């Protein structure tokens, strides 16, 4: 009984070794860069982390195919290096000693990439599934491009400045015209005060001409 068990185990182990090896069919290479991602907070990669990884892949397969047949034991890891990098393959529990097609695994990983990344506190760049490309998220674009807003502000300032200068120029021009017309008016008033060709000032300042005719008449009237 014990021998049978041992035999089965060894067959399974050999089978597993057959299924999971570098460049095997439906196998994927994973490369993890913990120190690059976390720096001082980096954790060490050990058997527990490997267990978590297997669990996440099994979770992804379950979610993708919605049949709860994939177990953690279905995920096989091999060739773990110091890098940290390893190969993994997902076996099919229903069929004996076969692996789930690579396309399925790829689709499942793709669908749950975010969850897997977050479980390890890593990102698409630091937890790399070679051969599985990630869809890049589009850059966030606001409804109006920012530059248009800045341009609008700048333009308003410039136009305001120009309008101010033109208006002040027109006002100055008007004032200058008003000043010059006032001066002209003043000169005209001076000239208007001409009575019969004799300037008023002259009439005011100089004593008036005495008309001899009337002056003579004055003598006839008696003084009051």
């Amino acid at each position: 009984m014990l021998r049978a068990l041992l035999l089965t185990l060894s067959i399974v182990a050999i089978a597993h070794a057959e299924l999971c090896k570098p460049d095997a069919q439906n196998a994927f290479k994973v490369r993890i860069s913990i120190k690059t991602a976390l720096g001082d907070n980096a954790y060490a990669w050990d058997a527990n982390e490997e267990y978590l990884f297997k669990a996440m892949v099994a979770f992804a397969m379950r979610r993708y195919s919605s049949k709860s047949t994939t177990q953690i034991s279905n995920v096989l890891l091999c060739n773990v290096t110091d890098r940290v990098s390893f190969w993994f393959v997902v076996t099919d529990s229903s069929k004996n000693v076969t692996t789930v097609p690579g396309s399925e695994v790829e689709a499942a990983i793709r669908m749950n990439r975010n969850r897997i990344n977050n479980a390890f506190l890593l990102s698409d760049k630091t937890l790399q599934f070679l051969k599985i490309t990630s869809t890049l998220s589009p850059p966030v674009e606001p409804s109006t491009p920012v530059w248009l807003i800045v341009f609008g502000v700048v333009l308003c300032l410039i136009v305001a400045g120009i309008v101010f200068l033109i208006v002040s120029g027109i006002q100055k021009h008007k004032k200058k015209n008003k000043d010059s017309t006032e001066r002209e008016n003043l000169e005209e008033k001076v000239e208007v005060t001409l009575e019969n060709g004799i300037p008023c000032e002259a009439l005011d300042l100089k004593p008036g001409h005495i008309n001899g005719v009337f002056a003579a008449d004055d003598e006839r009237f008696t003084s009051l």
Partner: protein
Amino acid sequence: MSKDLSAAPEISEEDGRPKWDNKFQYILSCIGFAVGLGNVWRFPYLCQIHGGGAFLIPYFIALLFEGIPLLHLELALGQYLRKGSIGAWNSISPYLGGVGVGSWIVSVLVSLYYNTVLTWVMWYFINSFQEPLPWSVCPLNENRTGFNEECYESTSVNYFWYRKTLNITPDIAESGKLQWWLILCLAACWLVVYLCTIRGIETTGKAIYVTAIFPYLVLTIFLIQGLTLPGATEGLIYLFTPNLNTLKNPRVWLDAATQIFFSLSLAFGGLIAFASYNPTKNDCEKDAVTVAIVNSMTSLYASIPVFSVLGFKATTAYWDCLDRNIINIINEFDLPEESIMRQNYTSWISFLNSSYPEKIAGLKLKSCDLQEFLDQSVSGTGLAFIVFTQAIILMPGSQAWAILFFIMLFSLGLSSMFGNIEGVFTPLLELQIIPKSAPKELLSGIICLISFLIALSFTLGSGSYWIDIFDRYAGSVPLLVIAFFEVIGVVYIYKIKRFSKDVEWMTGRKLNLYWQITWRFISPLLLLIVFMAFVTLQMQRPPSYTAWNPKYEGFPMKEEKVYPPWVQAICVLLAALPCVCVPLVALFHLVKQKRRSKDPSFVPPEVFSCHGANSNFSHTKE
């Protein structure tokens, strides 16, 4: 009327000519005109390719024998005659009127394309308010599986410049469409120029306080920031290490002479216009020396932050190269992370090369050489819009640095535009194109509007190729020719004795021997040599340009193309048009003179010729 009429003209200073508010405004305007984009993006480049500190030797020699004398000549001329370029040269001699017309045409041509460069600066400025900076990331392609191909193959910075800004066509013959975003920025730029030059020096005099001083502030900030960046010292050492062997190459001397000449903005007529608003009793000699020295010092001062930043960029690129190689090696050999660092990279490489040479060869590692990255020298728009923008992305707080940098470039360019526009505006004002009753605002508005409409052609897809043409042909050879005729005209036609007396009257001291020698012999000779050498060099290689063509096999390298014949004809026209004015106008006056002398009833105008306005004041203290 004797030709040795040299004593003081009684040109009244109450002739209603606008004047500077104070001397500082005038000096600042001249400095602002001289200090422009070339001080930031041409001088450091020349220093770098011509042996670092050794370049300063031919540069200062050129400054002494070419720059300062010509500057003094222009300032003295404008100040004494109190007219813009066309009027001033007509006063000296009607036969020399062509010199004024030539410099007016050059000012027009340069104003057109210079403001388009400022348009690009403004576009980058308004894009700097975005997080992340738009030139730091590549846009995705249509099905979002990767980046845009053109961007991916070159860099995101190149893509933003060539595609998102210029939307450049692969050939100059393909004009492409008008780029609406550039039209908006062009309109804004011309409105800014209109705002500042609306009433001539009345408004530019106020604006210059900001636009001339602000760049120095920003340069200082960049200097402090630049020196703290890693790799800055490498850049500075690289810049200033003198390599005296380069002085044997005549090309270096030619570059020094042309750099000084174009950097001081001589022969544009703008300096004559600025000086004409001065009171006549002003020490133009001291002004000239001040402006020239400040200009050169600014070039030197600007090259320090530029090279700190370039050193930083080269170091970062070198580190990136190393890091990429390290990652490749670690991934290939499955070594633990951080086992190979930059410091022990070389030892690891030699070890691995000896043990696994095929694997290493299979990786196709790029050789990372810091010197090679430092050697990548760029000048002109490439420096500002590609190299510097890339360096800014790497700095912490990149938005602030980008905004500061582009405002600085804009101020530098704007203060030079003031000089260009004055060179156009003042002669037109004197020629009374518009009636005297019309306000000055109208004339400046007309100038800005017409320039804007013509400059729209630079916003086409092929616009930047045309700007290169204008820069190479309209803004180079004609200036040398005009300056040559300026010196010859003043020294040999107006006669240097007369001019010395005029300058002596203005400054109050006798003219130094230095000025006599340089004006009479050295400067004209130097100009002639520079002109010959310049033309010879241009002739040697067929006029070609480098085009940005994504379909080219060598992409992202630029494709070398030859100008089609019709474009070459335009180049010749641009270079020849201002130069040809000089003999044309002289010929025109000669013909007019001959025709008048044939008519016996006409009194020969010699009495009034050759000293223009000054002859009105014939009652001089003699």
